């Protein structure tokens, strides 16, 4: 064998060896990766050994096993179903799934809940608040990071229970109807997304941990999808729960005004101004309602105060100037009914 052909045959052997190594690498790496992925998927979960316990979990919450990348639609169908909206992940996917991101965004989950006539309320990022919602009977939508080694793997799931004795969190998650996770593990996976959690609720049923301001914001964002009786019921529920909160009173006054209930609107605005005398919008709307009620004198007093309160360049300034101009133009004295309020 000449030196050249010998070198060539060496090269062939080296090449063959390299190809064989490559093939084995491919096979082995795939096997390892699959094992690792399975491990990750099962990490921290305790399997089906813990029996379902109605004292600690909401057993009636529906379950929709997810297909690949579709945990968003599945989790959303779960919380919507629990709030009384019958729908399926397939129906929701066109509203929340983004093919190019192979997933769903939090804000679109909330928006899709609103477009189904529900309020979406983002909780304070505390496990205690999550627990309070569970106790009040509401399953909680959460964002978890199930990744490892610095690789993010965002996942939506629905917490349906917490067992304080065993310190276990129970979720509808992925393809598991009852995924049981140690609380510490759950908290770690929850922390990466900023402890994001939300409840989906019928508009007249404020969440247990909601604030008056937060509830009015959630209601306001959903209002265009709601029928007038439902909006009325929601405002009534808010007033019932937070009778002294300025924003709740303003919203209730505005609702009454929009429905033509001038006396009701005036009463709410006056309550608001007792709680917060410097509220420009309340002062301005009271002036406007007083004008409509045939009380131009009182209206002018309120309109002048509103104009004195409003800051230059405020988006509210136009409305305030408009009301002042109307009250000034109206002139005259109050009708006899105005004193009675």
């Amino acid at each position, binding site marked *: 064998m000449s030196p050249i052909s010998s070198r060539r045959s060496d090269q062939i052997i080296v090449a063959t060896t390299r190809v064989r190594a490559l093939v084995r690498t491919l096979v*082995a790496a795939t096997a390892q990766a699959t094992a690792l992925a399975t491990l990750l998927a099962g990490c921290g979960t305790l399997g089906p050994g813990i029996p379902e316990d109605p004292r600690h979990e909401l057993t009636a919450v529906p379950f929709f096993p997810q297909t690949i990348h579709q945990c968003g639609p599945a989790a959303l169908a779960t919380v919507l179903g629990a709030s009384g909206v019958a729908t399926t992940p397939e129906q929701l996917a066109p509203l929340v799934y983004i093919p190019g991101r192979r997933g769903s965004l939090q804000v679109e989950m909330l928006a*899709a809940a609103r477009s189904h006539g529900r309020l979406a309320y983002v909780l304070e990022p505390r496990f205690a608040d999550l627990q309070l919602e569970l106790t009040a009977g509401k399953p909680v939508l959460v964002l978890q990071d199930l990744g490892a080694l610095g690789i993010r793997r965002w*996942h939506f799931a629905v917490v349906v229970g917490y067992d304080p004795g065993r310190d276990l969190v129970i979720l509808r998650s992925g393809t598991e109807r009852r995924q049981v996770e140690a609380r510490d593990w759950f908290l770690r996976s929850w922390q990466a997304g900023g402890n994001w959690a939300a409840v989906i609720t019928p508009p007249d049923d404020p969440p247990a941990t909601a604030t008056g301001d937060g509830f009015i914001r959630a209601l306001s964002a959903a209002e265009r999808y709601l029928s007038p009786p439902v909006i009325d019921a929601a405002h009534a529920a808010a007033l019932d729960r937070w009778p002294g909160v300025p924003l709740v009173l303003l919203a209730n006054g505005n609702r009454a005004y929009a429905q033509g209930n001038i006396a009701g609107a005036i009463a709410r605005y006056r309550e608001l101004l007792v709680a917060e005398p410097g509220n420009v919008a309340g002062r301005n709307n009271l002036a406007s309602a007083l004008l409509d009620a045939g009380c131009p004198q009182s209206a002018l007093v309120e309109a002048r105060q509103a104009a004195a309160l409003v800051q230059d360049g405020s*988006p509210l300034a136009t409305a305030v100037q408009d009301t002042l101009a109307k009250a000034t133009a109206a002139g005259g004295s109050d009708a006899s009914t105005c004193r009675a309020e």
Partner: protein
Amino acid sequence: MSFRQTTVAITAACFLALGLQSTASAGVIGTQAYLAAEARAGQLADISAALSRADVQAQLVSLGVSPADALTRAAALSDAELAQVAHEIQTLPAGGDGLLAVIGIVFVVLLILELTGVTDIFKKV
């Protein structure tokens, strides 16, 4: 002007027309106008919201959402949500259970390490 810019401009004009109609009632300050005023300022904000709504719609389409669905979805977002999505649609957490992505990344890393000779897991061939 590119096709996308034109589309964004036209859609923005439509959203703006819709938006201004709803906030045009002068005199009484509605709850939504009040909340918006707390957060931002005036008509400039309306215009920027309309622009980002159209932009979000275009971005959703480029990520594989059908144009009709993208229109509905962009319209369903609040102003604050829009601003967030418009700037971060590529980086916001997208819950989807990226199982395949994990397998893929681990695989590629192992492959690169093996081929570059950093690791030599399979030397006994």
